[in-house]
């Protein structure tokens, strides 16, 4: 497993800890259950914290905690399970979350661009993904019909720009 964040292959500074594991020093990612059970202890640690949501654990349950969280990891239990795409958009667009949104679990190369569009800025990917594969698969499409969390201009806005340009050159 390797971590890609904002397009860079980086060392993961967070440790994913199980619910029974002792907390190591340094940044950790815990389950929602552990966060809810040990909120005080975890908040008191003076180190970055992440929470991992399973499919079915909606971001609304941590909406009030987001300012305490450096990472929200969203699980893809199978590539077919696309719930977390909606979760990511809600985190970014509804709750205005600015921290890291990380895709974990079954993440296929052919899904990279959809994930980025929905607001994931970090992806845990399998070891066979090279920077070349990332470059190709994260850029399959250069145009987008619909708005999403990445704020990329839509085809509609490009059309409007073209029309405006045509109009201003008409009047010029």
């Amino acid at each position, binding site marked *: 497993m390797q971590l890609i964040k904002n397009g860079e292959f980086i060392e993961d500074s967070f440790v994913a800890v199980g619910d029974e594991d002792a907390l190591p020093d340094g940044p950790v990612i815990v389950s929602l259950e552990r966060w809810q059970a040990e909120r005080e202890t975890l908040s008191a640690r003076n180190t970055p914290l992440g929470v991992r949501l399973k499919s079915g654990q909606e971001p609304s349950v941590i909406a009030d905690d987001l300012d305490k969280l450096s990472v929200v990891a969203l699980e893809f239990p199978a590539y077919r399970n*696309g719930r977390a795409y*909606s979760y990511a958009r809600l985190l970014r667009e509804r709750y205005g979350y600015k921290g890291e949104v990380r895709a974990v679990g079954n993440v296929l190369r052919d*899904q990279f661009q*959809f994930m980025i569009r*929905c607001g994931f800025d970090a992806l845990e990917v399998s070891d066979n993904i090279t920077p070349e594969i990332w470059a190709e698969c994260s850029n399959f499409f250069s145009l987008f019909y619909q708005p999403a969390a990445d704020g990329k201009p839509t085809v*509609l806005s490009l059309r409007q720009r073209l029309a405006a340009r045509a109009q201003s050159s008409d009047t010029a």
Partner: protein
Amino acid sequence: MYRYDEFDHQLVNERVAQFANQVARRLSGELTEDEFKPLRLMNGVYLQLHAYMLRIAIPYGTLSSRQLRMLAHIGRTYDRGYGHFTTRQNLQFNWPALKDVPDILKDLASVEMHCIQTSGNCIRNVTSDQYAGAAKNEIEDPRIISEIIRQWSTFHPEFSFLPRKFKIAVSGTPDDRAAIRVHDIGIQIVQDGAGNIGYEVYVGGGLGRTPMIAKKIADFVPKEDLLAYLEAVMRVYNMYGRRDNMYKSRIKILVHEIGAEEMKRQVDAEFAEIRKAGTLHLPQEEVDRIQAYFRPPAFETLPDESTELNKAVLADTGFANWVKSNIAAHKIPGYAIVNISLKPIGGTPGDCTSDQMDAVADIAEKFSFDEVRVTHEQNLTLAHVRKKDLYAVYEALKAHDLATPNINLITDQIACPGLDYCSLANARSIPIAQRISERFADIARQHEIGELKINTSGCINACGHHHVGHIGILGVDKKGVEYYQVTLGGAADEKTAIGDIVGPAFTEDEIVDAVEKVVNIYLDKREAGERFIDTYRRIGLAPFKENLYATH
């Protein structure tokens, strides 16, 4: 019709390049069939019993002559000289080689066509009324909003891995030819008292093993908000639709389990938030831009009556029969809607040879403003033909075995590919439809029976829409033997109903006799002016059940 601009072209070309790369990885062995599966399924490539099958999107069933000619060319070059029009208004090729698929996609892209989202758990090709722009009581041409939905749903990053496939249908007239109430979302175009166009939205319809009629959850969504509303429905479904069991993962099950009221509440709450964000607001200029592509063609001012037509009807009984069943009223005086039956007696419903496609393309170019429609009942439609040209159109169609005069009659059947092609099927469908067709071949008898829709599916996935056939036939497998279960009283129009199971299933040898018996019971019981479905609604299942099994 809609024409791609530079952006639409670029997106399709990028998709072709992406898929060509994926196919190359499969052919080189870099990808196993298992790894390739989710990728090919994003692009309409299925693995069937004997070969790969390629499904081509025909957005809302509209084709130009040039596009139809390209389909003919693909059928001839890469397949066995024919294609199969489906109940989703799409076209399937049953025998392409995987290595040829990238070339086929390039050919398609050259005429603004593709296979995007014709399979997989995403928003599928939007379907609509084949009489769009021609129907008398149309509130607005449904292709305008269908095209807007097509664009919004194409490569939607949030909704490409839904719990299950998702189908949207749009109707622009109060009488529904798009079967909107058996779709995941059905959109009915309506007009308010002030003349504003908006949309009634139905959710949770579908056939398959759990047939459900969609529930209306919105009476009037303003045009500018429709995409925001659809995104709200999709998000609720994506978050709460079941993923534990593929047979319970369609939106109809969610709506059924939480109830239409709760569904409406959740969608309304999500809609309010999305609307507030404003990013999906549909600007009038974009609606206008797309609407311009669907402007009415240059209709001539003509008398509504055509003496040429009247004379030909008197002179040629074959033509008279065809006019009686295959022609529908047009909103412009002197014009008619022509339905081309792809259900020749004893043929395979929906099959069309490349030569026939070329012929239809030529006829459409000459007589119907260069445009062809595909219907969800697996026929073709020429939307705008001058009445005085009908005889010439008939003659041209007849020369290519395309003038079967049976639209909406008993031999105009829907049938899925069944066990002859499909790996899911339990029983054959096509041979049953063919034998029924042969039994009722006599045209006078068909007209005597009147409107009667027989739909046949080869398994409970119901691709042949048996639940909504006036007579529905479902193939089942009992210990290796094919049996056929009969339902009565189904309908897919504005009075959508799921058919009632009549009783024990029939063997392959009994089924055609059973259908004939049902027809005879109807003929015996009907009152003046009644169609089969009217009689059934009046007298119910019991008289059919009693008589059908009486001699068993």
